[in-house]
């Protein structure tokens, strides 16, 4: 109990005293996870739409693969990305291992199945006739997509939240491919692991509370947008 109180106090102290390293870690965490989620949206929303609306052989297998991907442990993703990017790996010459770019790539791989799965589910919950109806009303292909996306907006925002929530809170992949280097690839979750390992439990807890607060703010913003669309 003592430690919990201590942690809350420490969180406020760190924020108020404006520890520059902490602000850097927060900014880095947000930047990496936001870029990864944005890329996952770019790839995942069209894919999800195609899976929901398309009729082609192997569609069920693909959907199952996506649903499995939604549950793959981030540390496994990290391991595979590490093997690809490490110096002895096939893309080692790019020199990407232990960089923010490598972390974005790993988080992108984690978030994409979530975005695809949620998008597919939300598009499938719309009336099947909707595109045909729009077609008969004379809407072009792009316009049809746009209107369907608008209708599926609740689900799409949920997809973004799921993707962002997964990557900002994951530690295994970021640790493996980023290397948790102080001042360059250390993010909130890996900093928590380090501080816990150091025995700095109040600081670790404070970082955990900040992570929670950060996730709350981002999700609150998205939820406000989502609910406004609804009304």
């Amino acid at each position, binding site marked *: 109990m003592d430690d919990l109180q201590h942690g809350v106090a420490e969180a406020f102290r760190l924020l108020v005293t404006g520890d520059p390293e902490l602000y850097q870690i927060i900014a880095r965490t947000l930047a990496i996870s936001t870029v990864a989620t944005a890329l996952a949206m770019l790839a995942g929303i069209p894919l999800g739409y195609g899976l929901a609306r398309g009729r082609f052989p192997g569609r069920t297998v693909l959907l199952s693969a996506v649903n499995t991907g939604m549950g793959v442990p981030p540390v496994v993703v990290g391991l595979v990305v590490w093997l690809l990017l*490490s*110096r002895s790996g096939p893309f080692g010459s790019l020199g990407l*291992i*232990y960089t923010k770019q490598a972390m974005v790539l790993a988080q992108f791989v984690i978030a994409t199945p979530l975005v695809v799965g949620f998008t597919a589910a939300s598009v499938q919950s719309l009336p099947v006739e909707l595109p045909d109806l729009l077609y008969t009303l004379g809407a072009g292909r792009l316009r049809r997509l746009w209107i369907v996306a608008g209708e599926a907006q609740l689900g799409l925002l949920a997809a973004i939240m799921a993707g962002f929530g997964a990557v900002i809170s994951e530690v295994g992949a970021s*640790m493996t491919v980023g*290397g*948790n*280097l*102080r*001042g*360059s690839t*250390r993010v909130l979750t*890996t*900093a928590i*692991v*380090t501080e*816990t*390992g*150091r*025995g*700095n*439990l109040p600081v670790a807890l404070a970082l955990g509370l900040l992570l929670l607060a950060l996730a709350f703010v981002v999700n609150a913003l998205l939820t406000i947008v989502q609910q406004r669309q609804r009304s």
Partner: protein
Amino acid sequence: MKRLLCALSILPALPAIPALPAAKPCGEITLATTTSTQDTGLLDSLLPMFKRETCIEVKPIAVGTGAALEMARRGDADAVLVHAPEAEKAYVESGDLIEGRRIMHNDFLIIGPTGDPARVRGQKDAALAMKAIGAGGSFVSRGDGSGTEKKELELWKAAGVSPASIAQREETGQGMGATLLVADARNTYTLTDRGTYLAFKDKLSLVPLVEGDPRLLNIYHAYVVNPGKHPTAHRSEAARFVRYLTDPKVQEWIGQFGRAKFGQPLFVPDAQTTSAKAGQPEETSGRSAARSR
């Protein structure tokens, strides 16, 4: 089919069944220790031997030395086995740790790129080597409060270099294995214990450059957590464990450990040859150990 499912459903519970009656009558202790004792496999062999002899179950929690000492201060452990004599002193003085015994040592190496840009190869004085690296090389540090990091900081201090002033110094905040991989990818210098280096040797292009300085000794002490301060601590079992580690027969076993796998022992036993005084690296025994390799 139904019966099969029934049979399968108890499978996850099976390993727990024999453990239940065994744990109770003999007692168990929590050992806070460092990742090196776990990663080298020392505890995996030692703890079952201890259990066979005494029936006491030891649960090892392998963390950095900083965290292991902190566990003792919080009363979350019954015994500790750590390797940062300087840091240990404070916990002995505060009365959290008692009955300290020196158990064994191994040594640290400074490894780096074969090109050796800071020209430290063969340097016998570790502090001078660190000074050269600080001036003309890059370095990857554990940065996790471990005994290895504490040793690194001690060396920077001896070299008269402030770690913060080195532009090319990075901290991983992770264990020795992960840090070796980062240093290798970055092609930089780093400080490593010999055991972990040997275990990772095949994966690394970095080579040993500086070794044998008595300052590079890595000394392990075992302590009992003081039940006077932490009433939940299991003193008699913990004391028995520390006594076991200093037993001549066990000490001899420690001196042989790793020879089969790595071609050389990973630790040099110390309990018979040195006093029990904590925080006092005996340099003479270190020299002979460094020579014996």
